Every structure is written in C-alpha cells, then in structure tokens.
C-alpha cells in the first residue's frame, strides 16, 4: 500500500484556458502537485472545478497554456500526437463513460488489439492472440467476451474492458477520470476493487479523479481538492478526512449524506452549504471560494491566497491558515 516516495509525476503551476463564445473560461488556474511511484492520488471537485481538464492535460488530450507537467523529471506538456511512443505507453487513461470509450463497431478482440497494433508492430498471429488473452484475463473477464460487441455486455464489464485496454501497454501511470460514476453502486464496488488489486500487483500509480468523497476515502493515498480551477487543500487521505482545514473541504464533507451514525462523526458541523458554484467564466476576484465561505474576510475578496504547508505533507490555500513560523 505504501509508496516508494519517489516522484513519478509533477505538475507545476499548470494553467488552461478555453476561449468560448461567452468569453475566456479559465478551467485550470495554476495547479501544483506531485504523484509518487505506486501512489494513488485523488483529485476531488464539483462540476466546473477543472479536475478533468487537469487529467486530460496529463494524458495528453491537449497542451496547457502555462506551467509544467514533469514525468520522471522530463517535460511532457504537449498533446499526445507530439509525445514519444514510449511515453504514450507509460501514461494511459480510463474515461467516465465506458460505453462511449468503446467503438460500437468493433468486437472486444479488435478493441483490445489496438494498443498492440500501435505500440508493438511485431506482434502478429499467435503472439498477439496470447497478449489479448492475457489482457482480458488481467481484469477477470472470460475469453468468450472477445467475440462480443460492446453493446452486448454490461456497463461494469465495459469499464473492465477499458481497464484491460489501458493495461495492455504495461503503463506505470493511469489517469482515471471518474471511472465509476456512470455505474451502479454494486458494480462500482467491483471496479474499484479491481483497480486497487491491479495497482498493488503491478505497482501502478493512479490519478483518480472523482466527485465522490466516500470513494476517495476508501481508495486513495493522498487527496487534493479543487474549486474553480485551483487546489484548495492537499493532504494524506486519512488526515484530509480527520482534520480538514479549508472551509470548502469542510463544506463538501458536511454535505455528504451518510448512511450511519459512525459516519456522521466525520462530518464537520460548523459549515453549511450555501450559494451556487460561480460560472468559471466570471470567476470571483481574490479567493474563488469567498462568495460561499462562512469565514470570508475582507482580504479574501481581493487577494488570492497562497498554498502553504501547515503540517508536513498537508497543504492549504486559504487566508485563514498561515504557514507555521
């Protein structure tokens, strides 16, 4: 479970802006974090927080408008077309919608053969066949599924195929963009556990993007929370939940409807959810959260707070919290 402590991926002051017909949308406004070898790093946030944009940039969907993405110390901030084959093998992605990520006109076999075709041209005939069989075996699906079309299998199984496809290139790092949000709870559990087992078996690192805090609590090693394109707080997961410092973290935690008294203990009581998430095109000045923050001070409305390390490995970006002297 523990990480080796060696940095695999580092994101520094990453920015991304989209130009829409309504104006400039700053999706990611300076985000910094690192992910260690064999670490599951969770990125939580609500809609419009820019969490998926961060994941997409790391996976190479598009380039940023500033900042750096360092993978094993090497700058990889460019779209996939410009990345080396080696890098494309190393970094894989699994999307939220398993149905949409599988071509309905291809059988599972054709879908799973794609990574081998692109990345190892030498594999043909029997070799390819064996590789495909290994790939589908890794996620525990029967071989008979190879002949099926995606629409003939269930949502959870589709997601397993997506995971198998991602694993086929023997990656070290996988971006998981809400991999279970489209699935039912009973199926989500299976997928989550499969992901955990694979991580342990192959020593993978994940960037786990989700809006579901309960899932974060049970899956990831370290958690970061995003609001309107910026990180609010980063901490090891257990500390993140036992000692949330940022008012937004507290608001989010207190909003979660829970199923037992035991869980109620984890919910901060003093912060109640108010207001709406502002449109990212009209981002509030100062701290992005000040319009909803119960502890809002004058400084919050004008000056952006900076990320400070309150305790070792626990970072907060809020005017309420000053770095220890």
């Amino acid at each position, binding site marked *: 479970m523990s990480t080796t402590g060696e940095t695999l991926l580092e994101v520094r002051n990453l920015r991304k802006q989209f130009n829409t017909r309504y104006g400039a949308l700053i999706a990611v406004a300076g985000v910094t974090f690192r992910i260690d070898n064999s670490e599951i790093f969770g990125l939580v946030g609500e809609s419009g927080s820019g969490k998926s944009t961060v994941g997409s940039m790391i996976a190479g969907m598009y380039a940023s408008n500033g900042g750096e993405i360092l993978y094993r110390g090497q700058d990889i901030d460019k779209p996939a077309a410009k990345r080396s084959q080696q890098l494309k093998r190393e970094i894989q992605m699994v999307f939220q919608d398993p149905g949409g990520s599988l071509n309905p006109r291809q059988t599972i076999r054709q879908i799973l053969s794609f990574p081998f075709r692109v990345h190892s041209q030498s594999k043909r005939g029997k070799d390819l066949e064996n590789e495909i069989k290994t790939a589908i075996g890794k996620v525990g699906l029967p071989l008979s599924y190879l002949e099926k079309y995606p629409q003939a299998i269930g949502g959870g199984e589709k997601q397993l195929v997506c995971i198998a496809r991602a694993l086929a290139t023997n990656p070290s790092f996988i971006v998981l963009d809400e991999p279970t949000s489209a699935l039912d*709870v009973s199926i989500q559990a299976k997928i989550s556990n499969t992901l955990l087992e694979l991580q342990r078996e192959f020593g993978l690192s994940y960037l786990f993007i989700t809006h579901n805090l309960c899932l974060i*609590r049970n899956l990831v090693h370290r958690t970061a929370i995003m609001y309107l394109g910026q990180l609010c707080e980063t901490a090891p997961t257990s500390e993140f939940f036992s000692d949330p410092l940022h008012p937004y973290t507290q608001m989010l935690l207190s909003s979660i409807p829970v199923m037992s008294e035991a869980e109620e203990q984890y919910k901060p009581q003093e912060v109640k959810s108010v207001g709406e998430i502002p449109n990212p095109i009209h981002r509030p000045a100062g701290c992005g959260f000040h319009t909803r923050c119960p502890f809002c001070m004058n400084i919050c409305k004008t000056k952006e707070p900076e990320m400070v390390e309150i305790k070792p490995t626990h970072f907060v970006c809020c005017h309420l919290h000053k770095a220890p002297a």
Partner: protein
Amino acid sequence: MSDTLLHIDTLSVWYKVYEGILHVLNGLSLHVDTGERVGLIGEAGCGKTTLLKTIAMILPAPAAQVPAGSVCLESVDILKDRRRGLRTVRDNVSMIFQDPTASLNPTLTVRTFMADILKNRPQRLSKGDKKRVMLQALEKVSMPSPERVLDSYPIQLSGGMRQRVCIAMCLLKDVRLILADEPTTSLDVTIEEQILELLNDLVVKGGKSMILVSHALGAVRKMTDRVCVMYAGEIIETGASKRVFGKPAHPYTQGLFDATPKLSGEGISDGIAGELPSYLTPPDGCRFAPRCPSCLPICNGSQPSIVTVSGAQDVACHLYTSNEENGE
C-alpha cells in the same frame, strides 16, 4: 395509524417493445400515509421511475400497459376510473424529475410556464396577483433574484436554480403528495444538500406526503420515515428507515449497503456479482436469486412472500420464510 393517502396493490406494469414485453413492475404493493415520507432505493433500471410515472399518470401511452393491480389515491382507483383518476391525481400529486434541464421546456420562459399553470386554476387571478403568486413561489424555494429568474429561459439558469424552479412550479398547486424522482442526481454535492433540505422543509412544514427516490442512500436515511428497497420491479424490503439502514435483512439490501463506500473508510466490499435480470425473461422465482450469495434451492422456483422480520420491517426473501417455519 394515520389515514392512507396512496394505496398500491399488486401493481404490474409492462412495456411493449420491439423485442417483446418487458415485465417491469411485478405485483408491487405500497402505501403512503398522510404526512409520511417514504424513500425508494434501488439501482438504475429497477423500476422506480416507472412506479412514480404510474402514480402520476404519465406513463408513455401505447408502450406501457398495466395488466394488473390497483392504485388508489384518496380512495379513487385511478387505473379503473381514468377520468376521475386523472383529476384526482392532478389535484393532489406533483412530481419532480431527475433532470431539471429536461423537465423545463427550453422554448418557454419561467414566467410563461408559471402563467400557464395558474391559468388552469379554478379561481381567476388579476395580473398583479399572478405575479405576486409567482414571486412568492420562487421566494419559497430561496431563489436568488426571483424577478430576474421569472423572465429567464431555462438555459440561462444553473442546474441548481432549474431544480428550484421545478420545485416552485410544483408548489403553485397545493398538492398532498410529492413524488421526487432523484431530484438531485444531476447536481453537485453541495447543491444537492441545499435542494434536499429545501424539499424536506417544504414537505414537513406543509404536512405533505412524499415519495423520495434517490441514489444518495444517506439522504434517504435522513429524510424519510420509511424506506422501500426495490430490485427488478419488486419491493423486496420495507421498514422504518432507521431500522432498515441499521439492520438490513434482505441479501440484496445488505449487498447494496456493503458496496456503498463509507466516509469512515473501512474499505469497499466486492459488490454484488452479476447484473439486473432481463425484463424480457425475468427469473421465475425470486428475481434476485441468480445474483444472491445465499440462494436456496427454493429461490429459483417460487416467488418469496412478504414476511415481517420485526415490528417495522418486512422482507420478501425465502431465507426468512424458512427460518420462520423452522422456528415455529
């Protein structure tokens, strides 16, 4: 016991589709008392929405059929006497849909929509009165700047505001029963909490009854008096919310609760193997049997009847019928 507002007895609903007949609801019984908040939980495709649509009389006409059962609202059987039933339902029932974007007509402003609702009321309102009533309704759902919202088209509002508008529209009519079909699934967590709290307040203060369908199990636990667990078109467990959430009896309920990730972080179970059965050819016996970890031989052949496991908890499972027989 307080008086019964809604009484559903052995209701079956089928859909005729290209491939054959989907046997969705299968002899389902449910009652809601005046002032009672009933939760309905279960995974996607278990027939929750079909049940609510049957009650609201908005089932898609030719495709959906009701071959058996009765739905009595204020002692009118709405399935038998459709004319009277429709009037009773429209007078007494409102429904909030899952996706507020889809439930508001994109081509009409909030004001036009609300005016159309008010136009259909028996008492005539003056223009000023109409506007006052509309603004009041929007204020009741704590809508920021209601004047502006009134002249907005749905696309000019955020998801949370759209759902508030929907609730406000439901409130224009003084109904006794509110059907809430996953009213917050499409919203963010912090907004979800606000909407659910608002809804709960309105129901409790107004002395209304409510059926709340939600994926957010925690919300159902907090906001309802009684909860029904649905699986594949059947209610397999029902009881006081506190009880069911504290000590689920049916293997499906147990599996569902175990699979839900907890804030306390004790890990996640492996979920429930398999998937919902096809409604074209549902299993003969217990519909959960093919996935059930504690399936008995009898489960595949005969449908379990409903057994009371404790004072306020009923369950439809052969595990308990056999226990009972063994025990007595």
